[in-house]
């Protein structure tokens, strides 16, 4: 494991890590609001909508993420008649799969957070004259995010590792570069370097969420 060799492969691997980070950011930024929306719809009084939201959560959590990715990347274009309009850039298709999958998990996390909030909070807000919507925004969601924070942190770290599934749909990213280098140079070093890069990413996330949890401790 010479230092020169590591420096030589680090460049292309960090290039791959850029794809990983990009996917992570896109998925986090879009799947958290999606999860929020789905949670609210699942609680809605319009039954068919609520039912739809529950079905969505059930399907996305009940099937392998890898299957979903393969479905979006290679399955959609095979659908008769409309398939030809559903051909997407492979990265975009994979990102869509990730967003829908993680949206369902976040929805479930937020649902748990909502359940943990005492009904006295709704009552106090109501007696103080807040509307349902104001109560949701100013009282309920803030507390729900606080309760959900540790689970959201967990899910985010899982997402960093799940980005490696891009390998399976042949989108070049960190793991892909590592595998190529291992095959080319007959050495295990690239895998170790990849591991270290993943560790660095999860470390940054862990610290970030620790900070958030401290910031929102309400003490």
């Amino acid at each position, binding site marked *: 494991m010479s230092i020169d060799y590591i420096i030589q492969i680090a460049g292309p691997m960090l290039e791959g890590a850029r794809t990983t980070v990009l996917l992570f950011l896109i998925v986090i930024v879009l799947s958290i609001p999606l999860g929020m929306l789905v949670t609210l719809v699942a609680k809605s009084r319009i039954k068919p909508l609520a039912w739809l939201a529950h079905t969505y959560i059930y399907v996305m959590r009940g099937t392998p993420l890898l299957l979903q990715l393969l479905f979006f990347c290679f399955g959609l274009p095979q659908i008769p008649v409309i398939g030809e309009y559903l051909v997407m850039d492979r990265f975009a298709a994979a990102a869509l799969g990730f967003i829908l999958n993680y949206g369902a998990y976040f929805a479930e996390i937020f649902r748990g957070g909502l359940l943990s909030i005492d009904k006295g909070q709704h009552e106090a807000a109501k*007696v*103080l004259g*807040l509307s349902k919507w104001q109560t949701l925004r100013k009282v309920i969601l803030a507390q729900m995010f606080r309760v959900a924070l540790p689970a959201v942190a967990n899910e985010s770290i899982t997402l960093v590792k799940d980005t490696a599934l891009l390998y399976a749909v042949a989108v070049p990213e960190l793991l892909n570069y590592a595998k190529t280098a291992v095959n080319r140079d007959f050495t295990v070093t690239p895998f170790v370097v990849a591991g270290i890069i993943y560790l660095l990413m999860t470390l940054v996330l862990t610290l970030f969420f620790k900070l958030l949890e401290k910031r929102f401790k309400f003490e």
Partner: protein
Amino acid sequence: MSSIIEVKQLQKSFGSLDVLKQITFEVKPGEVVAVIGPSGSGKSTMLRSLVHLEEITGGSIFIHGKTLAENGKYAGSAAIRDITATMGMVFQHFNLFPHLTVRGNLELAPRTLKRESSQVIAARSTELLTKVGLADKADVYPSMLSGGQKQRVAIARALMLNPDILLFDEPTSALDPELTGEVLRVIRQLAEENMTMIIVTHEMNFARDVADRVFFMDNGEIAESGTPEQIFGNPQLERTRTFLNQE
């Protein structure tokens, strides 16, 4: 003087369980009413009906002569908000907002409702925190307060909207005995300032002291009502005597 609260033949049932049966009473402005009675007699339900936390199933409620509900039918939601806005409620378990500081708890509703400038709101929250003796806790989160302090914050929060009527549902029942005094003192001061109040309580001495009238509720009815002297000194009903002897 005309009544500020008028309740006629109020009924409430949960499914087949009749919790309130034909409750009728009036409260005059500035009056302090203490409500006592055994567990499950409907005290909380009665109080909660007045601010629309429970949907009544029959009877009428008028606040300031305005119709909150008539013959079991509620006014529209705008009218309900209008009427209940003149009433504050203090809960047994405080129900403070844990994610806001003490000052944040007081100011959330007025700031959200935006009827006053933020200087006016800030000035009043400072004034009310001083009044309940917690000016130094303005920037602290509720989790750092004792039960008695939490309940005093809850009272100050209810006062932020300048209510004409305050409802208390066992404000000291969740407190350690040594902390009830500080809360009762605040309520007593409000009584001296002629705040109209209905207080559900197990503190008989306090009820005797501070109330103009006492309702004894039993089994979904106001079984007996009168001045504290009448209820505590010379109760007419056997069940009132039995209850008072147990307390």
